[in-house]
């Protein structure tokens, strides 16, 4: 993605990715400025707050050297005074530390919320959201689980890393002040251990990757067993399914346990290492020339300081894992934000469409889906006069639904030009275009809200009376009255409380209520019951009256009612004319028609 070299301290494996971790962090701070605000104050506060940990070794040293081993009777007044100073310092450090943690939590929450909203808005501008619907799940996780991974890191691992680093640095500082020779030994040994740790951590990370992969497989087999139950039962595949689930569960557990052993050993190595350093400090402190100028209190303080240094290293093993997950999440989000909007709102002066019914002109328009081998719409040129009622027919895969999305600029052609009302469609501002051009998709998607609110989605300021009037105008008053709660009926998740035909009815009113001057309809294919069929047809007739309309027809009755029929075959416009003309011509349309007729005539 970027040519920026990794940071000099980079270790292979941890930082190597398309976007370097450092770059990713810098960029995310840029994209979500809330995260950046006052970050240095937070770091300084966190460092100061870490001083709590240093108080203990220092007071131990002071008490041992000035009181316990001073050779005289212990002066309790002195001891109590020093203890009081230590407690006071500690209280101060606690307040500062709390402030740092709170700042971190507040900034992280605010920044990540901002990042989520921004990514969400950007994803809505990407046409791949509806072009490649199979990638939708991945896009959902960009604004949900990826953000959560970053959040978890900032709240737990990130705080630990920050505080831990500060603690380690302060411990080293204290050691240097006490006895720099001993400090060098400790720091040198800790550095070697850190390198080893990072190397082994890479192995551990691969283990965790394998676990994650297994988790995905397990989830897949379990969801198959649950969502495919009626098929499984209808075909007696229960045992077969259970074997698959069981196998997936067992291999996941095996991989997890293997990784747990390795992780446990790696984690515990820090203790072993702390022991070795402690032993080394004692040996050097008492049995080398360094001993001459070392007080007993200093050496004892060192024993405490070694623990303060090693403790953060130990948690580093676990934090790095979280950090990598967070960095991966950041990278994925940045990749989404970097994906250019394929269909941009025209910059500069946005043109307005002429008033009244709109004409539609296409000049050698071609379209190919991303990654597809062939054009699905091939070199289509046509003119539609304002106010015409057009039907588009063709077999599945003939490109007729793609055509509908092209003339509404939900897709952008790779070749040719589309003009609406004589103006190139990509020069019309989105708000103007969406106001004037209505589109009813094949699957009427409804939100989990009332039917009225779903209709209002087409015109936000419509009052209940306006919504009811719209239903009335399309001849749906009776249908609305038949709903359990009238217009207040809740549509349910994805409109599940209504039938497919009813969903399309609502989608039709929704597109129509803003009175578009060009209405593009993609008819539903699913079977609709007879009474509803009549309603739908009448509503479509009413909705298309007085405006230009293009209906992707799956029912030949729609074609028959149209002023003109466009016939698509394998992406090309092969025939156009009235229903009668086309039948007489005996071409593609007539053949298509015969398919249906065959079923009907066999009866009589």
């Amino acid at each position, binding site marked *: 993605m970027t040519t920026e070299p990794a940071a000099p301290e980079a270790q292979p494996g941890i930082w190597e990715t398309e976007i370097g971790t450092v770059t990713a962090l810098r960029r995310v701070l840029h994209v979500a400025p809330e995260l950046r605000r006052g970050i240095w104050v937070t770091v300084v506060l966190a460092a100061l*707050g870490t001083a709590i940990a240093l108080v203990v070794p220092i007071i*131990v040293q002071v008490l041992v050297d000035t009181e316990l081993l001073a050779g005289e009777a212990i002066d*309790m007044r002195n001891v109590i005074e020093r203890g009081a100073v230590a407690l006071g310092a*500690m209280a101060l*450090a*606690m307040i500062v530390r*709390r402030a740092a943690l*709170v700042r971190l*939590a507040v900034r*992280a*929450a*605010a920044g990540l919320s901002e990042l989520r*909203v921004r990514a*969400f808005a950007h994803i809505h501008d990407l*046409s791949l*959201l509806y072009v490649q619907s199979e990638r939708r799940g991945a*896009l959902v996780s960009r*604004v949900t689980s990826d953000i959560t991974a970053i*959040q978890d890191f900032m*709240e737990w691992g990130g705080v630990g890393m920050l505080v831990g680093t500060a603690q380690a640095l302060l411990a080293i500082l204290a050691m240097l002040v006490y006895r720099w020779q001993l400090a060098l030994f400790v720091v040198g040994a800790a550095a070697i251990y850190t390198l080893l740790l990072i190397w082994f951590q890479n192995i551990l990370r691969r283990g965790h990757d394998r676990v994650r992969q297994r988790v995905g497989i397990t989830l897949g087999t*379990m*969801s198959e067993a*649950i969502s*495919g139950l009626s098929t499984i039962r*209808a075909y*007696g595949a*229960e045992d077969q399914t259970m074997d698959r689930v069981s196998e997936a569960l067992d291999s996941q557990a095996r991989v997890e*346990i293997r990784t747990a*052993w390795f*992780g446990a050993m790696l984690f*515990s190595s820090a203790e*072993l290492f702390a*022991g070795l350093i402690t032993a080394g400090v*004692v*040996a050097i402190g008492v*049995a080398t020339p360094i001993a001459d100028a*070392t007080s*007993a209190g200093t050496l*004892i303080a060192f024993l405490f300081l070694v623990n303060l240094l090693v403790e953060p290293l130990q948690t580093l093993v676990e934090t790095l894992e979280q950090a990598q997950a967070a960095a991966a999440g950041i990278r994925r989000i940045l990749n989404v934000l970097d994906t250019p909007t394929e269909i941009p709102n025209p910059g500069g002066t946005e043109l307005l469409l002429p008033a009244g019914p709109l004409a539609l002109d296409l000049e050698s328009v071609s379209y190919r889906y991303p990654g597809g081998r062939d054009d699905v719409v091939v070199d289509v040129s046509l003119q539609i006069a304002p106010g015409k009622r057009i039907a588009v027919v063709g077999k*599945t895969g003939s490109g007729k639904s793609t055509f509908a999305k092209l003339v509404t600029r939900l897709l952008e052609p790779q070749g040719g030009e589309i003009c609406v009302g004589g103006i190139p469609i990509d020069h019309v501002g*989105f708000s103007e*275009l969406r106001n004037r051009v209505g589109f009813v998709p094949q699957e009427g*998607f409804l939100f989990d809200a009332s039917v009225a609110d779903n209709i209002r*989605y*087409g015109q936000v300021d419509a009052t209940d009376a306006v919504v009811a009037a719209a239903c009335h105008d399309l001849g749906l008053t009776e249908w609305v009255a038949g709903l359990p709660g009238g217009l207040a009926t809740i549509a349910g*998740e994805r409109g599940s409380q209504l039938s497919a035909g009813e969903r399309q009815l609502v989608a039709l009113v929704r*597109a129509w209520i803003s009175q578009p001057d060009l209405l593009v309809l993609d008819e539903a294919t699913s*079977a609709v*019951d*007879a009474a*509803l*069929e009549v309603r739908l047809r009448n509503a479509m007739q009413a909705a298309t009256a007085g405006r230009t309309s293009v209906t992707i027809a799956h*029912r030949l009755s729609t074609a028959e009612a149209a002023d003109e029929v466009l016939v698509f075959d394998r992406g090309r416009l092969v025939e156009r004319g009235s229903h009668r003309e086309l039948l007489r011509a005996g071409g593609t349309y007539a053949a*298509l*028609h015969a398919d249906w*007729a*065959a*079923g*009907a005539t066999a*009866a009589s």
Partner: protein
Amino acid sequence: MLRRGLRLIRHLVALHPVAYALGALGATAYVSAIVAAAVVIGNVTDDLIIPVLDAGTDPAGLVWPALFAIAGVALWKAIGITFRRAGAGWLQSRCQADVRRRLIDYMLRLELRWHQHRGVGDLLAVADSDAGSATWILAPLPYATGTLLLLVGTATLILLIDPMLAVIAVIALALIIAIDVRGSWLTFGMFESIQRRRGEVARVVHESFDGALTVKALGREQFETNRLRIASEALRDDLTRIGTVWAGYRVLVEGALSAVIVILLVFGAARIGAGAMTGGELVTIAYLFSLLTIPVRVVGFVLWDLAHSSASWTRVQHVYDSAQLVEYGQLLPRSGGTGAAVTTSPVAFAYEEEQILRDVEMPIDAGRTVAIVGPTGSGKSTIALLLARLWDPSSGVIRLDDRDLRDFARAALPGEVGFVSQETFVFDDTVRANIAVGAYPTPEAVATASRLARAHEFIEQLPHGYDTMLGERGTTLSGGQRQRVALARALVRLPRLLILDDATSSVDASVEAEILAALKEAELPSTIVIVAYRRSSILLADEVIYVEDGRVAGRGRHEDLLAIPGYAEILEAYEEQDGEAAGVAP
């Protein structure tokens, strides 16, 4: 809650006691090493550091034992930690797999009615996240066991050194743990609300992205972004709140431990002055306390996990308690190349207090092809589901060649009955496995069935033919292709009763016509029941059953049924829908 939590722990530990024992043993080794380390450091202080650095004693002969003691204790501690963590991981992984296995097995036996009631997403959430978090408590469990021992060990050691300091230490530890527990409780309540907020954010995102085409077509991107902003900022505010509270408790607990060390040092100095203890003993106590930071906090973590796991476990248990298992008999499928006859006593069916079928009697002679026709909601699809025994009637009996469907053994009925519905399910597997599922047909049989279902041609053109992977990680089929695969799936087993419920709705009209013609020509050794949504499929039948309002309202040849007004009306609508212009055609 606590009692339920302890029951959960007992239940899970009993599944894999060896893993728990390993972890607990490791934890015991670990805590004994902590106490030992403190004692060693104290002794090293008294016997080596102070004599050498303060009194100028020659270190020779004293250094090596000290080094071995320090390193030995560290090794002992490391081994303890390894076993503690690995044991905990083992216990958790195995228990998680067991809980999930049992759940899925149970779900596979539950009545479909129950599945329908709960919803796929909900059930998957139980099997995935609830079964996962029900076992969270196992991760810190061995550590927690060890911590209890550690607290006892700490108290005992300090008591042995000096009773007065022991009293201070015990009171201080009790206080710190109390603070920690309180913090855990408080944040746990908030955490639940955060989970709800996260769910709300996910719901908005899912819905909005699913409806992307509608959002875009109506130009409502800004509206949707605002909707998400509201949900996201509610989450942000909760996270800020929990972060603030949690920061306070965390700092308080960590600071308090250090403060206690200072207090102990001050009192200890007085005790040393009084000659009650040595400097090394005081170092032991201080060192031990400095090692307690993490173990003490484990108590809070455990309570947190316990609350969380208990809540999840309740949801898991709920699935077990629902107890609507399908009951099976002993009958095995009868093979033989003839269609089966269906007979029934009057059958009724109700779903969630709604009476869907009443007094339905529908004998079907062996080898006949029968179409079931009726308006939406008349119950015709329900009849299909009952015939395939995907649901059981509320009352009445359905028999296949005089055998009650409920007397068939599990997975035996599909040996005689093939069922294809409008909604096809494709498994994450090869095309061949998708057709073969549950049976063991030869490759030739698979190809023959596919030809009959008009699927062979497009399958051959897939990248790897019949071995092409389908499903989530494989090739995506169109709706019509999926339906044809599903049809082949039913045909490959030469069912004695074939049930088609709007099974070709997504198939192109001309292909559907071909399929129906092929089915007719093939003279399958099957009785065929077609729930018809199109005129063309009605015309395939020898006989039509007309269903209205949950009852059989007519039965006979298509031409004769046209006398029933409701039937004629539907047919008219189908006719318009299918090929209104048939009459116009030359």
